[in-house]
């Protein structure tokens, strides 16, 4: 019994140490500015305030960035998941020449570094007159999101028993009819998880946004918030922490949906780094 308590305390102290930076982010965001500079630092805020959140929403362009990020991530997710769903169906359930090579190409691009693609993509998008638009970012984001979504959906697709489809075909359904009526409902949990992961990836992307967008009209949160740090004369840490918290809220929601699925066990390669 004592051994169990000691082990629990040990385990939880590590967990809390890992989570401490996030706790500190939350605490700093609700402290008034002067309290940040008190020595020793207060662990829990002595004067709770939401002024930084208010300031973030009213005095900065945070909401603009947030909105750009929502449009950007949602569009990327819808485009990518739609293409990847039919693509993975074809890769798993059809026989034609070049199929294996394609599967190999998907895995290869899934591991490809974005710094290699970014230079030609930059030239391409500038030549197309798309620089500084959200569209350019959607195009750029497909380079990492599509291989990723294809790879994930392929394993989900492979998990659906082939007999289900055959049964529908024997009953006289067309191939596409069987896809719509049998495969899609079975694949739905996989589609939802893939969509959430794709959304998280797009929401967190930084490098493409840094290179391709240089105006506040199209800037997403990642580069927008970083800009607030670089351009400010003296750094307001509470404000930045409030921005970090707000930026993480959609991720927490997505994470809550994914959590049961993740802790049930998820093989390597399922989550992209």
């Amino acid at each position, binding site marked *: 019994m004592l051994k169990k308590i000691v082990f629990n305390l040990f385990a939880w102290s590590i*967990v809390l140490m890992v989570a401490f*930076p996030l706790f500190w982010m939350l605490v700093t965001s609700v402290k008034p500015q002067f309290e940040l500079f008190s020595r020793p*630092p207060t662990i829990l805020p002595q004067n709770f305030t939401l002024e930084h959140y208010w300031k973030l929403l009213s005095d900065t362009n945070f909401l603009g960035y947030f909105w750009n990020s929502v449009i950007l991530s949602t569009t990327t997710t819808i485009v990518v998941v739609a293409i990847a769903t039919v693509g993975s*169906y074809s*890769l798993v359930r059809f*026989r034609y020449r070049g199929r294996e090579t*394609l599967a190999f190409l998907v895995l290869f691009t899934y591991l490809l570094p974005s710094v290699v693609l970014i230079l030609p993509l930059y030239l391409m998008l500038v030549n197309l007159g798309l620089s500084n638009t959200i569209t350019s970012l959607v195009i750029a984001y497909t380079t990492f999101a599509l291989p990723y979504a294809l790879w994930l959906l392929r394993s989900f697709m492979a998990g659906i028993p082939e007999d289900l489809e055959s049964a529908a075909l024997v009953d006289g359904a067309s191939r596409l009819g069987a896809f719509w009526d049998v495969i899609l409902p079975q694949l739905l949990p996989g589609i939802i998880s893939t969509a959430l992961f794709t959304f*998280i990836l797009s929401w967190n992307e*930084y490098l493409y946004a840094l290179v391709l967008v240089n105006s506040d009209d199209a800037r997403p949160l990642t580069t927008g918030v970083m800009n607030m740090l670089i351009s400010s004369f003296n750094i307001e840490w509470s404000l930045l922490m409030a921005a970090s918290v707000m930026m993480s809220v959609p991720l927490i929601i997505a994470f809550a949906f994914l959590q049961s699925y993740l802790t049930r066990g*998820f093989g390597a390669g399922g989550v992209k780094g």
Partner: protein
Amino acid sequence: MTQPTKTLLERRYSMLGLLLIAPTVLVFCAVIVYPLVSAVYLSLFKIFTPTLEGSWVGLDNYRTLLAKGEFWTSLRNNLIWTVGTLSLQILFGVGMALVLHQNIWFRSLARSLILFPYFISTVVAVLVWKWLFNDLYGILNHLMMSAGLIAWPIDYLGSMPNAMISVILVGAWKYFPFVVIAVLARLQTIPEQLYEAARIDGAGPIARFFDVTLPQLRDVLVVIIMLRAIWDFKEFDLIFLLTGGGPVTSTQTLPLLVYKEAFALNQMGMASAYAVIMMLIMLVFMIVYIRRTRQEGS
């Protein structure tokens, strides 16, 4: 059913299959294959980024970069960063997975807390750590000083070797949850009988770990190490945002060098040459990984 109609049906199915994969192939060609080929092509030019005007220089870029010290220091930094952060991720990740596999209080809450660093944006992670590292008001310096570990505030990101150590540690913190998820999933599939048998043979907890758990984890660990090695090697955001490659070029890795060359020094051609070389290095890991995955598939 007669033979010809069956082949007709099969042919129609193949056509449908090709039709369904067509959007994927089109997008791949436009945003991945074409840029990849033109990256190699660009590396043979000298291009000024703001005007995008270029002149053919052949292999000169490659000759210049291989003779330059900056390439070799960046490669060395890249290897130090990758090996350092990867080994910490593996050690800490496996340890944490073993702990979370036990029946601890509020296990699912503990698991979510551990996974969280992996899901937040690198921007958020960097902002939080910069605030923790802050030399005047950061909590880390305060805690270390009150514990008597240091006499004066430390400059975590502005001096060496502190900057490299800090970057490696933050990288380990951010990415070890990936190892935890993957190892935890594998741990849950190890049959309980194996442990029973070991226990009957009189194996203690440590012997059970080395004789039962570790051999069972071997395959998944190989996959994790290869994947994480590839991803850590190409990491840009975390290092760029934390130190920008500094002080001077002490934490500058190859991805940062590509970015600097293209968008700070405005040498697009040279940057492409760096990118191509970087990809060639990564190709070794990638081929090993892909081969392995294919073997498992068949």
